[in-house]
């Protein structure tokens, strides 16, 4: 399946809603739940979810949603998550990924981390488009969402009642970050620091975990870690 064919499948508004819902949950989603969220019947949702799986935008598996096992637990339900593969279309054909990888490789070999981070911070400041630092976590989330980071709020340390931190499901630089992690993740942190602004109510720091962006945002008042 070519990327352009896979992406074309998202043109259907119901499919698009279902896809966006599954992606935003960051976990396995059942058919009933997806149907309800998209406001369509279960059979229609199932049809579209399977189509999305068929073209490789989602992955499907089966799991007992009740959490029970053994006789009487019911048969496993079909669940969906976002496929890990990345799709991109560029018309006419352009290959920015190879350019990015070559530039990162050269920067890595030359040890240009500090220069790259300074450039990223300036770019972030430029993108902010205001002299004032970001006003709060909500505003920061809007800014991040607009840049494709897929932010969501979590209690810090996973502790209920912990101060909220904003984590990001998506790394916009994923492919290059996987090949040159310290360099590109450092660049990403600097970009976000510029975007949020220094000495404001929100700050960015590195808190990497598998499968997510390496940075979290939090209230600058929480000083403990």
């Amino acid at each position, binding site marked *: 399946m070519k990327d352009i064919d896979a992406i074309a499948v998202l043109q259907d508004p119901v499919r698009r809603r279902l896809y966006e819902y599954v992606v935003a949950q960051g976990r396995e989603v059942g058919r009933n739940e997806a149907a309800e969220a998209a406001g369509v019947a279960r059979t229609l949702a199932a049809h579209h979810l399977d189509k999305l799986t068929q073209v490789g935008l989602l992955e499907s598996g089966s799991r007992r949603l009740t959490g029970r096992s053994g006789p009487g637990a019911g048969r496993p339900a079909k669940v969906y998550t976002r496929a890990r593969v990345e799709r991109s279309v560029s018309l006419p054909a352009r290959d920015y990924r190879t350019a990015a990888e070559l530039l990162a490789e050269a920067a890595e070999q030359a*040890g240009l*981390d*500090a220069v790259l981070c300074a450039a990223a911070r300036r770019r972030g400041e430029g993108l902010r488009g205001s002299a004032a630092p970001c006003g709060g976590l909500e505003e920061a989330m809007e800014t991040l969402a607009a840049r494709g980071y897929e932010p969501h709020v979590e209690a810090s340390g996973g502790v209920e009642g912990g101060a909220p931190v904003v984590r990001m499901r998506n790394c916009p630089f994923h492919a290059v970050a996987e*090949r040159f*992690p*310290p360099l590109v*993740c*450092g660049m990403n*942190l600097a970009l976000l620091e510029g975007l949020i602004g220094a000495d404001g109510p929100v700050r960015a720091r*590195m*808190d*990497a*975990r*598998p*499968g997510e962006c*390496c940075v979290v945002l939090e209230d600058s008042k929480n000083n403990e870690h």
Partner: protein
Amino acid sequence: MTEAPHAAGHLAQLNVATLLHPFDDPRMTPFVEMLDPVNAAADAAPGFVWRLVEEGAADATGLRPAGEDVVVNLSVWRTQEALWDFAYRSGHLEVMRRRREWFARHVEAHMVLWWVPGGHLPTVGEALERLADLRAHGPSPRAFTFACAYTAAEAAQHLGTVEAVR
């Protein structure tokens, strides 16, 4: 942590880092402060098997088998993914991000990966030989990097063929 022998083998990892300043220099303090928490995170990480520790110490920074100003980091993991997730998707990434503040940039390879039989703990000498192999011959099933990695099966197949040819 005890490890049952594992037919598929374990992934060993060595990296060397040349210090820009002596360990007791204030410029090294942020690095020194991160050692304990990051090592604790490694010990608790999924897929962690073993890491080199100096006798009577919490880490291997006092051992200088590759030179007076070179610290070594030698560890064993169940899978390449487990090592990658720890190295780049845990608190260890913050150390890596700031590496230029504390360590000289290496022109030659400074990190090497290789497969060992499950239950085998590599010696420092063995590890330095693998690094020398990588530096001399480039990535191979004997000594490779994340960018040019071999799975345990691929490495076993290649090395088996080499043995058979001999």
